[in-house]
């Protein structure tokens, strides 16, 4: 039984052990996986990206002609005595397996790990029909004894503590276990499970691949249980999704280059077993399950998800997964892929809950060994969930309000008045309002809203004299201030203008700027996003100037989200594209058209600093993300090394409001790394992240300052103006 999402979430965030355990896991996995991947790249003299794209195209081509490959597989498997049966739903699969068992008088089935059997909730269904299924993979067995389900695709019991394991094993086997003696607990599986293999009438396994050219299955395991489950009983069931088909053994080998390295960071798992056909005197039933897979294939945004080889890597780099674990971040399938495929294999309700946990950082796509565009797919599912009424009501209202300029401005104005009052009352420290907040919210201080907007600051001062003429010298540049930065970080907006002016260009701040639509797009509310984007397009279409913004996220929104939003509106799309072509992230501008010379901002008395790059753009390899290099180049200073520089800071747009514990947990991870760097100043490039990181640092009383890099650079301009 899977409890409802809210309960699962609360249970997860209340568990004090889960976060540190998953953090240690993610870090050690990352290190070993990266080492494995770089060895593979050396061996093959090809990049990970080339290798994964190659195999992805094999999967795509196979899926394209899936029925032909199923026919080939069937013919070859049946020629060697196997029964191949294609079934469309979970119920069909359960009925089929139960039917064969009933006909043979089988009441005990031993199982090796199979995610499809989890997907169809086979154990419970068989139990209702009087058939017992015993899991024989150690992790799965421990879960079964505890009446739990896997929280990870590859490490199913990663959430269990050894003390807990000792308890459940003790109960099952009737003797005491020392929680610190893990080998003894592992050894107990050998004895505890042996009798089941001998008594079982059938063994059930999954398949990592179905090889069409010979009708074989390939299964990758480490413990040896799968070989027992397929050798001792008389009947062998295989449950596999149709997407597991591959044409040839050489494709199987390509899959093996990627799978164990991405899954357990092994070169190869202990056992790679190939079985072709029924063994003499025995039966083999291969169940090819659809259960929503053809529907996925028909959905152009989602089809690529069928390439998935269930390695679990997308969970291993996922910051929110580290905070809440797989029981919450997913349904039966966990991690990023679970956020995508759940709505096809199960219901949209099952898929909706965890959607709000994803911070859209894009880490999953960077490690996925079959290059699935997971972040984009998650947004597409989120949209489906939102449009079918599964988004929280507060979120809809918040976005509506945000999309109305009058309301947005009025709220901000009110905020700035309240902030002045707070300041007068002595409640403001380090630019944040100190209020007695409940624990759930106190991890992030509230920024005081300054009285003046960034646009006002620019209008009120004289232009910065040219420091060194850049290629753009003499031109006029439109500054897109960004809604949050303009109100909450006016000095940063002004600093951006100063840096553009230092390159000899003049700055125009188009009036009536608004939000680009990103928060609504991220929340799956495309209607609101379109409304916001249209208004911004109108404002930015008034001139044909180059456009510069200190907000890295808005550049992604214009370049990547707008074409999706206006796919079906050619006219708007053309205007949107024209803007996307003119827009520059400030950092990319200062290295490109608005390039300032090396060392031009060199000053005495440098402080020590490090840089956190906006995760979305750095995970996409955008040049503007290399802010540390820019600051080093202009100032001649050197960044202090920062661990995990590409891991999200936890802002994640609405996530930090919807799931504050997730925002807090990820922020903690980041701030610990910042503290370990020993820097005095943390530089970052996206206003949302800067606000989040600063508010968190103030709340925990951290020693460092948090600045947008534009502030840091502009402070180094000569002050002769």
């Amino acid at each position: 039984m899977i409890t409802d999402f809210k309960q699962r979430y609360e249970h997860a965030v209340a568990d004090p052990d889960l976060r540190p355990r998953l953090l240690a896991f993610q870090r050690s996995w990352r290190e070993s996986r990266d080492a494995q991947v770089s060895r593979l790249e050396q061996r093959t003299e090809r990049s990970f990206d080339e290798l994964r794209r190659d195999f992805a195209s094999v999967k795509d081509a196979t899926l394209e002609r899936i029925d032909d490959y199923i026919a080939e597989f069937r013919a070859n498997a049946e020629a060697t005595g196997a029964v191949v049966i294609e079934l469309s739903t979970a119920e069909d699969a359960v009925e089929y397996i139960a039917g064969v068992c009933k006909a043979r008088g089988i009441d005990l089935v031993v199982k090796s790990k199979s995610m499809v059997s989890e997907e169809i909730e086979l154990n419970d269904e068989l139990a209702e029909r009087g058939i017992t299924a015993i899991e024989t993979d150690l992790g799965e067995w421990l879960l079964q004894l505890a009446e739990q389900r896997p929280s990870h695709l590859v490490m199913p019991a990663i959430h269990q503590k050894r003390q807990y394991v000792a308890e459940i094993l003790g109960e099952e086997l009737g003797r005491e276990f020392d929680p610190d003696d893990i080998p003894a607990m592992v050894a107990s599986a050998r004895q505890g499970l042996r009798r089941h293999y001998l008594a079982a009438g059938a063994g059930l396994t999954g398949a990592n691949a179905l090889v069409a050219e010979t009708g074989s299955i390939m299964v990758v395991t480490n413990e040896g249980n799968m070989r027992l489950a397929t050798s001792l009983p008389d009947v062998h069931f295989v449950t596999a999704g149709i997407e597991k088909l591959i044409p040839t053994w050489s494709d199987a080998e390509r899959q093996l280059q990627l799978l164990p390295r991405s899954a357990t960071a092994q070169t190869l798992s202990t056992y790679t077993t190939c079985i072709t056909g029924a063994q003499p005197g025995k039966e083999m039933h291969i169940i090819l399950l659809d259960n929503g897979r053809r529907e996925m294939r028909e959905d152009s945004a989602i089809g690529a998800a069928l390439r998935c080889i269930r390695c679990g890597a997308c969970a291993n780099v996922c910051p929110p997964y580290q905070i809440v674990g797989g029981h919450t971040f997913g349904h039966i399938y966990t991690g990023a892929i679970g956020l995508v495929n759940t709505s096809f294999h199960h219901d949209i309700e099952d898929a909706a809950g965890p959607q709000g946990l994803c911070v859209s950082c894009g880490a999953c796509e960077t490690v996925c060994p079959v290059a699935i565009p997971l972040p984009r797919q998650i947004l597409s599912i989120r949209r489906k969930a939102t449009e079918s009424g599964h988004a929280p009501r507060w979120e809809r209202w918040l976005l509506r309000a945000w999309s109305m300029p009058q309301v947005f401005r009025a709220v901000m104005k009110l905020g700035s008045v309240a902030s002045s009052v707070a300041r007068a009352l002595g409640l403001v420290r380090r630019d944040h309002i100190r209020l007695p907040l409940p624990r759930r919210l106190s991890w992030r201080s509230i920024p005081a809203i300054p009285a003046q907007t960034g646009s006002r600051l620019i209008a009120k001062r004289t232009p910065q004299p040219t420091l060194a003429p850049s290629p753009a010298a003499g031109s006029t540049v439109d500054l897109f201030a960004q809604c949050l930065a303009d109100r909450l970080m006016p000095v940063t907006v002004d600093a951006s203008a100063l840096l553009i002016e230092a390159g000899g260009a003049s700055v125009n701040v188009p009036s009536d700027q608004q939000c680009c639509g990103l928060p609504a797009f991220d929340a799956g509310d495309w209607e609101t996003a379109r409304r916001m984007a249209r208004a911004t397009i109108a404002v930015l279409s008034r001139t044909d100037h180059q456009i510069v913004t200190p907000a890295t996220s808005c550049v992604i929104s214009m370049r990547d989200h707008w074409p999706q939003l206006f796919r079906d509106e050619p006219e708007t799309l053309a205007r949107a594209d024209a803007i996307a072509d003119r827009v520059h992230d400030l950092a990319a501008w200062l290295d490109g058209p608005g390039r300032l010379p090396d060392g031009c901002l060199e000053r005495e008395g440098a402080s020590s600093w490090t840089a956190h790059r906006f995760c979305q753009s750095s995970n996409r390899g955008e040049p503007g993300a290399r802010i540390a290099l820019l600051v080093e180049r202009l100032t001649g200073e050197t960044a202090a090394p920062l661990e995990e520089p590409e891991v999200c800071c936890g802002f994640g747009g609405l996530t930090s409001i919807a799931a504050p514990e997730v925002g807090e947990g990820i922020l903690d991870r980041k701030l610990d790394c910042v503290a370990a760097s020993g820097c005095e100043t943390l530089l970052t490039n996206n206003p949302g992240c800067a606000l989040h990181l600063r508010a968190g640092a103030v709340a925990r009383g951290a020693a460092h300052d948090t600045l947008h890099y534009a502030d840091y650079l502009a402070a180094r301009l000569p002050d002769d103006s």
Partner: protein
Amino acid sequence: MITASDRGTQFAEALHAAQGEIAWFDSWDELWDFADSLSDDVPVVSPAAHQFLQRGDLPDAIEPLRSIADRAVGITVATLGVAETGSLLLVERAPIDRAVSLLTRHLIVAVGEDDLVDELTDGFRWLAEQPRAAAYATFVTGPSRTADIERSLTIGVQGPSRLTAAVLT
């Protein structure tokens, strides 16, 4: 050009990385002496290996599992060894062969030095050309293992806890 001895070294390194062991023998006799010295209990020998060794305990025909399970030493043969990964390809159509390679504690797998290939690709190519062998074939890479309890790597779960590749020169 990779020479046979390079291949052996590579194979040994990869196998060590997978927590496996390696030993070199000139003859089946030497291999037997090694295996027999490991324990007071007589090694149990898979039918596939017995053809060559002609000694040791064959699994009992009537109660095969009881005669194999948890015995100290088992001996079987591999068709190929893969230098790249340290894997041994076991072709085991008969369940009894599998029982020896799975249920004994210390598994010794004999492989001819001439049967070492460079890469996994070679192993798969061989498999694709031998449909009968593919009926039940396993690339075994080191002893069985798990990290299912708190990610702590434990060697020896439901399969052997020690694995020695016995390379016959």
